């Protein structure tokens, strides 16, 4: 039986926590470390409505999404005893994922060299925005900063318009996936060497492959790509068309000449579709503006899902532009039971993204919702590190561990 990994998660925000969340989904024991004086700042993210309720820090939709399948402790790393206990934890763990800047880890005395001394087989993954070395390694950024620096913002947006941030800070979730992959590759390397390894992951460098087409268009052909809106470089028509209802839209891509023929059939071969030059992508591309108007006139009084179903049944590529609540009720995701309802203390029952990938025959499971602040102090310091109950109480009285955060 492969022993499940034990992961120490010294991260906050989105990218780091989502990386260890995936490892938790896979069955690893993930121990999230916060500090009594500094809770994960993401506990304040995504809050709407009443800003004054009790224990708001347990009610963040975003924090609670990316911290499931972990247990959580609050340990004061600025205190010498706190650091000692952290090292004890590292001694009995396989992987540390940390997203503090290198200088902070050094200052706290928990950089790789210090930790390797207590656990010579440690895999440590650090993920600063710009990497651990280089002239800008101490620079800081959010997901939208790293997205921009990978050149993604610069090629997104309406044609001829200003650059446009991607809607969901793509730098964060992609860095999460890279950090998860780095942790697993790191484990293989550790087993191969029989010794620990420190892995340097720059958010930006992990994002560059996603923008490879634009970057290579420059390195190969000196072409500098700009935003093209909802269009495609070769396919036409290709766009986002208005539908019935409040802010309803459908995305249609005529991906081939054969799809154009099918599309014309669905519409009943109206006169505007019958011009010979429209039979080829080049011809349609030249007539794109006029075609967009015809398409919009056809879609505008229909439901977006109805347009999608009708076109897809006929073999034409189309998709409803789903808002958040529409994702939640999407018929396909529902049929696949993708979204998970998880009940959590202080937050109640909510829907969260399901497991990617889906494994057979051993599917992932939710074994724990996101931990409340310091929820598992007793389990980790008692059961795992073997401290006596009086010692744990002493640590609490000195606020080296706690279940009550200092609020910012």
């Amino acid at each position: 039986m492969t022993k499940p990994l034990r992961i120490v998660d010294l991260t906050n925000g989105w990218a780091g926590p989502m990386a260890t969340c995936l490892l938790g989904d896979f069955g690893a024991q993930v121990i999230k470390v916060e500090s009594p004086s500094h809770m994960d700042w993401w506990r304040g993210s995504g809050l709407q409505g009443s800003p004054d309720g009790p224990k708001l820090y347990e009610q963040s939709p975003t924090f609670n999404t990316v911290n499931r399948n972990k247990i959580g402790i609050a340990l004061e790393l600025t205190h010498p005893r706190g650091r000692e206990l952290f090292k004890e934890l590292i001694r009995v763990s396989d992987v540390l994922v940390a997203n503090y800047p290198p200088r902070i880890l050094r200052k706290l005395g928990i950089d790789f060299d210090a930790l390797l001394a207590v656990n010579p087989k440690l895999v440590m993954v650090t993920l600063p925005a710009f990497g651990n070395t280089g002239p800008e390694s101490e620079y800081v950024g959010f997901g939208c900063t790293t997205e921009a620096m990978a050149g993604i913002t610069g090629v997104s947006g309406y044609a001829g318009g200003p650059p446009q941030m991607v809607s969901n800070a793509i730098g964060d979730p992609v860095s999460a996936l890279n950090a998860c992959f780095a942790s697993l590759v790191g484990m293989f390397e550790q087993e191969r060497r029989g010794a620990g390894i420190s892995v340097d992951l720059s958010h930006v460098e992990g994002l560059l492959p996603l923008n490879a087409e634009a970057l290579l268009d420059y390195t190969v052909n000196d072409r500098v790509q700009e935003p093209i809106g909802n269009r495609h470089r070769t396919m036409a028509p290709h766009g986002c068309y208005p539908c019935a209802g409040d802010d309803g839209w459908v995305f249609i891509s005529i991906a081939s000449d054969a799809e154009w023929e099918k599309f014309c059939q669905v519409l009943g071969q109206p006169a505007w579709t019958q011009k010979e030059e429209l039979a080829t992508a080049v011809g349609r591309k030249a007539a794109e503006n006029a075609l967009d108007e015809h398409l919009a006139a056809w879609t505008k009084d229909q439901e977006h899902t109805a347009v999608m179903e009708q076109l897809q049944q006929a073999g034409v590529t189309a998709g409803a532009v789903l808002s958040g609540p529409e994702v939640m009720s999407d018929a396909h995701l529902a049929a696949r039971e993708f979204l998970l309802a998880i009940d959590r203390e202080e937050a109640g029952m909510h829907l969260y993204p399901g497991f990617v990938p889906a494994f057979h025959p051993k599917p992932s499971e939710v074994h724990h919702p996101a931990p409340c602040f310091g929820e598992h102090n007793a389990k980790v310091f008692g059961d795992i590190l073997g401290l006596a109950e009086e010692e744990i109480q002493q640590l609490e009285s000195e606020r080296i561990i706690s279940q009550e955060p200092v609020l910012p």
Partner: protein
Amino acid sequence: MKHALSGIRVVDLTHYIAGPYCTKLLADYGAEVLKIEKPGQGEGGRGLPPFFADQPGVERSGLFSFLNTNKQDLTLDLKTDRGREIALALVGQADVLVENFRPGVLDRLGFTAEALEQANPHLVHTSISNFGSSGPYRDYRMTDGVAYALGGWTYPMGELDRPPVQPGGAFGQYIAGLYAAIGTLQAVRDRESLNAVQHLEVSIQEALVATTLYDFVAFSYSGFIRQRSGRQFHLGYPNLVTLPCADGYVGIHAGLPHQIYALLKMVGRPDLANDPRFQTVATLGANAQELHAALLPWLKDQKKEDIYHAAQARGIPACPIPSPKEVVEWVHLKERGHFLEIAHPEGGTLKIPGPPFREYGKPLWPLTRAPLLGEHTQEVLGKKLGYAAADVRQLRAEGIV
């Protein structure tokens, strides 16, 4: 870390972007990847732009050359009995099979679950598809634009009085490839304890939904619907914004109150730090336009590079909005040696981004260029299956390789 995955043998039946990116990630970190393509034109990824000198051709795609580094390549007609037998024999010697056929195609080709289990009872079988192998959209067609729409990425992007706008690029396919690579490694780790074929499935739609957070989960909590908010990032942090400057645009990403005060000081408006409009996340959100207006007079005379370094020196998250050219020429990446140069027979010296992570303090390692179509057919069939040169000639004459 170039040998980290060196014990892992992968049979790669993938095409276009999602599948090849998954096996590239494995190959660049040392796995042995055997890419199987159809004889003649090869897989569809060879038809993806940009092309060397803009001239399409089987060996002329820059993107294919990026997505297939460190792999070996053989051609095989999987629609023939002999081709299938050879592929199954290779699967029998491998640890992992990765494919991104449309649901049902693998079965029709004769690679049923039973056939795979018979070939290799410990196989890790990784599948990537548009919508997964079940459900009403199973056979729906997908482009990147449609993937973003159904993954919930498009609706909140753009201006409120215009249509939503898709992100630029093929991110859904890369994200699915990443999920598949992660799942594959996890399954290889679990293999001994499970003693069975493991199948893992990545749906591109689900991969996109799983990488959003601010929309349906936030709605579930509070009924909040995130609307398009132009060049502002809308939700809790109104001051993540793209603003014009003297020579282009900058990203001002001062999300937290102390960063906003440092920013106001930098632009010569420390007086506004005590302004009641800019005190809490809530009031900053309501008065974001006024805050941005206060920054514009200073920004309009400054260059984006200068703003970047000045802001970062004060601990303020800010950046230029670089073009692809400026990314390739960025000094920091040069110092880290991140872009790699690879000689290609038709493309000259190809410059590509390197692997996403490295050992701390160590340089990246050279990658082997993407294989030519069928470049290793003889070698693989000889070494792995003991075929003599004459056998391979015979297979070639029959059009099987």
